């Protein structure tokens, strides 16, 4: 829109008059008054063409001109399209014509024939009226311009700024007074990251004709005060082509929108990046958001998931789950718990889910679901439960077996001993009754029968003792081995008064052990030592301790008959004996019992022996992992000799 006026003449006037004489007369008259006559048009087409070309300030229009349309139609067109003020020249005044003419809002009517003075006055009044209207329109226009939020800049055909509104001033940091005549590209400083930004802007500046916009592109504008703004630009070329054309740019500040868009996008990106499955669905069931974590867990891509009903996409493996959360969501707005679902490939997984109901401003409800795959944890729990169950079964089996074993022992004690007693008793009675009548040999046999029965009775008793020892719980306590050993020796010595024995008892430690069982170890080992040294005139029996790599070892040594080491591994087996019964009595249970006790303590026992050169039993009472400190050298003190 052309808004500036030139005042180097009183006014430029287009005359539309097909009567040559009249037209010439009018032109002369006007020029005499100092007006410029831009053209004299004689037809409608010519009038329009000239009006478009010269943009007069006023049109003098003869109502009757050549052609089909009369002057009123032409005037109407010019008034409407070029906002040109019209003064009608008319020779007749019929009502209809006047009414039509009035509707085109003319400045005035001049009735032929008229005097030059009349023409002068009418033209002057019309022009003045027109300028007042223009100024009004201009003021309105400026107010409107300043009121709108978008920045508006107009340039001439050279690209120099002709106008900018307040929003444009704020956007660019330029005052309009300073910007007038400056290149628009300097005022609107485009600093896009891409080079194309400025070029696109130039293209917009050179736009031809119809309004154009570059909606895909947003420009970054650097204001004079150093502030950046993002704008979208619409440009249009108005007032035709050529030097008088005007370009209008409307720039919308989209900085805020861009920032919030970006923030939203960043949040969405972050959500999407999360490994946790996150998705939303409307209360009617359609999935509206589906992140990467959800894809990873359930196998569906966003394309496959979005828009689908959640119940259809992720069917609950156990339908009983469904009712619970629906009720809770309605009541509390959220629900958490375990859901068993099927993934895309049909696998059943257990998800610990949190469902939250969110309402937007419109009151529309969306369910946000996050979850965690706890399938493996569930699996592990199940496995543990299963193992515990197995363990319980094993324990009860074991308990049953133990009970059976006890019953077995009990029946051994009762049922096996009874017949032995009977055999012994009957043999004895027989001996007594038939004392005289029986041959010596028969008496001998009866005697041996009784011995066998007696020996078996011992075996049964010792076997029971062994099993009792095995089942006994260890009761460890700090024990002085020295005094424990003295107790054992006190009992033992009374049984071997007739023997010549040198006892060498060394220093013995204070250890953590079950004293009752340890006492039995010493008793059995010492009884063996006494027994197998019987052939010696002077038996020598040593008890002591040695230290080896921080581990204390106890030993019992004798100078008895010993044995060949090739049988050493049989020594600790039940009922295994390395000597003839008539040489050395015994059942072969004693050492087995000793070994069991030592194993119960976590220790070990081993033997060094040689035939006819004695035997040494070494043993420990705890595992090598927890050695106790003590003297490094073996200490043996001779305590007493004989008896």
């Amino acid at each position, binding site marked *: 829109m052309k808004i500036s006026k030139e005042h180097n003449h009183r006014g430029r006037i287009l005359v539309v008059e097909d009567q040559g004489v009249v037209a010439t007369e009018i032109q002369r008259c006007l020029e005499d008054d100092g007006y410029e006559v831009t053209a004299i048009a004689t037809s409608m087409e010519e009038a329009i063409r000239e009006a478009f070309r010269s943009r007069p300030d006023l049109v003098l229009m003869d109502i009757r001109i050549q052609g089909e349309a009369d002057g009123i139609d032409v005037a109407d067109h010019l008034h409407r399209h070029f906002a040109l003020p019209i003064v009608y020249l008319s020779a007749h005044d019929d009502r209809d014509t006047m009414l039509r003419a009035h509707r085109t809002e003319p400045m005035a009517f001049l009735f032929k024939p008229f005097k030059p003075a009349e023409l002068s006055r009418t033209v002057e009044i019309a022009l003045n009226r027109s300028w007042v209207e223009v100024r009004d329109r201009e003021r309105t226009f400026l107010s409107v311009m300043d009121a709108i939020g978008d920045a508006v800049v107009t340039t001439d055909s050279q690209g120099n700024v002709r106008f900018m509104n307040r929003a444009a001033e704020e956007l660019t940091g330029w005052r309009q007074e300073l910007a007038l005549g400056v290149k628009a590209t300097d005022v609107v400083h485009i600093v896009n990251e891409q080079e194309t930004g400025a070029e696109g802007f130039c293209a917009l500046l050179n736009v031809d004709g119809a309004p154009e916009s570059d909606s895909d592109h947003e420009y970054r504008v650097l204001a004079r005060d150093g502030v950046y703004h993002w704008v979208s630009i619409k440009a249009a070329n108005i007032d035709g082509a050529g030097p008088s054309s005007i370009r209008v740019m409307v720039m919308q500040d989209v900085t805020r929108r861009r920032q919030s868009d970006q923030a939203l996008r960043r949040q969405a990106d972050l959500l999407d990046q999360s490994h946790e499955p996150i998705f939303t669905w409307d209360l009617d069931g359609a999935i509206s958001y589906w992140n990467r974590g959800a894809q990873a867990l359930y196998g569906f891509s966003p394309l496959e998931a979005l828009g689908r009903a959640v119940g259809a996409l992720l069917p609950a493996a156990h339908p009983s789950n469904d009712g619970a959360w629906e009720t809770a969501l309605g009541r509390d707005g959220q629900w958490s718990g375990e859901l068993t679902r099927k993934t895309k490939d049909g696998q059943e997984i257990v998800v610990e889910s949190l469902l939250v109901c969110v309402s937007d401003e419109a009151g529309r409800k969306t369910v946000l679901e996050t979850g965690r795959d706890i399938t493996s944890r569930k699996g592990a729990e199940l496995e543990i439960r299963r193992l515990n169950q197995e363990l319980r079964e094993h324990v009860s089996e074991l308990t049953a077996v133990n009970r059976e074993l006890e019953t077995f022992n*009990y029946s051994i*004690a*009762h049922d096996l001993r*009874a017949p032995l*007693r009977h055999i012994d*008793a*009957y043999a004895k*009675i027989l001996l007594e009754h038939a004392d005289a009548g029986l041959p010596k040999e028969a008496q001998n046999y009866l005697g041996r029968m*009784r011995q066998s029965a*007696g020996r078996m009775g011992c075996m049964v008793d010792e076997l029971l003792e062994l099993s009792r020892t095995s089942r006994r719980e260890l009761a460890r306590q700090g024990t002085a081995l020295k005094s424990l050993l003295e107790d054992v020796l006190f009992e033992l010595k009374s049984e071997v008064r007739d023997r010549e024995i040198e006892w060498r008892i060394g220093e013995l430690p204070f250890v953590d052990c079950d004293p009752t069982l340890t006492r039995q170890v010493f008793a059995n080992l010492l009884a063996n030592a006494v027994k197998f040294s019987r052939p010696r005139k002077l038996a020598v029996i040593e008890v002591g301790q040695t230290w080896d790599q921080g581990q204390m070892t106890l030993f019992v040594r004798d100078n008895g008959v010993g044995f060949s080491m090739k049988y050493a591994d049989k020594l600790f087996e039940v009922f295994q004996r390395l000597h003839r019964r008539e040489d050395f009595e015994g059942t072969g249970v004693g050492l087995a019992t000793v070994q069991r006790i030592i194993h119960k303590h976590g220790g070990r026992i081993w033997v060094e022996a040689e035939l006819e050169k004695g035997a040494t039993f070494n043993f420990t009472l705890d595992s090598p992992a927890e050695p106790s400190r003590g003297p490094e050298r073996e200490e043996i003190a001779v305590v007493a000799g004989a008896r």
Partner: protein
Amino acid sequence: MMLKDQIEILLVEDDPDDLELTMHVLQEEHICNRIQVARDGEEALDFLFCRGPFSLRDPDRHPKLILLDLKLPKVDGLEVLEQIKRDQRTRALPVVILTSSKQEDDLVRGYRLGGNSYIQKPVDFDQFRNTIKRLGYYWLLVNQPPPEAAFDGETQDEIPSRV
């Protein structure tokens, strides 16, 4: 006051050999002749409480001693002991447990239920003979049997104090 036909010993024993040998020793050593044998727990209880085949027996004539095996058919020895010691009519009777078992469980329960003595049958017959002889002399001759009053009323609450 002793009646001629009074039973002196109730021998509760199911094993025929043990029965034979025990009787042999008791008679050989002239400890007593009036021995009542019960071959299982039920028979022993029937005798003591005058039931079944013993319903005509005079309940006031108590044996002087009960020799009780533990492993018995029908009602086992410990159950028999419990019933004897729970009933005021019999609880004063001396009961000697004579058994093959030396199980600690049996010992503990035997004494807790009020057994007066606990003897394991020795394998060696000489020892067995001596044992039977000594316990017979002790309980039948040395020991003063409980007087009639010992079998009267009073409450059962006394039993635990005896255990």
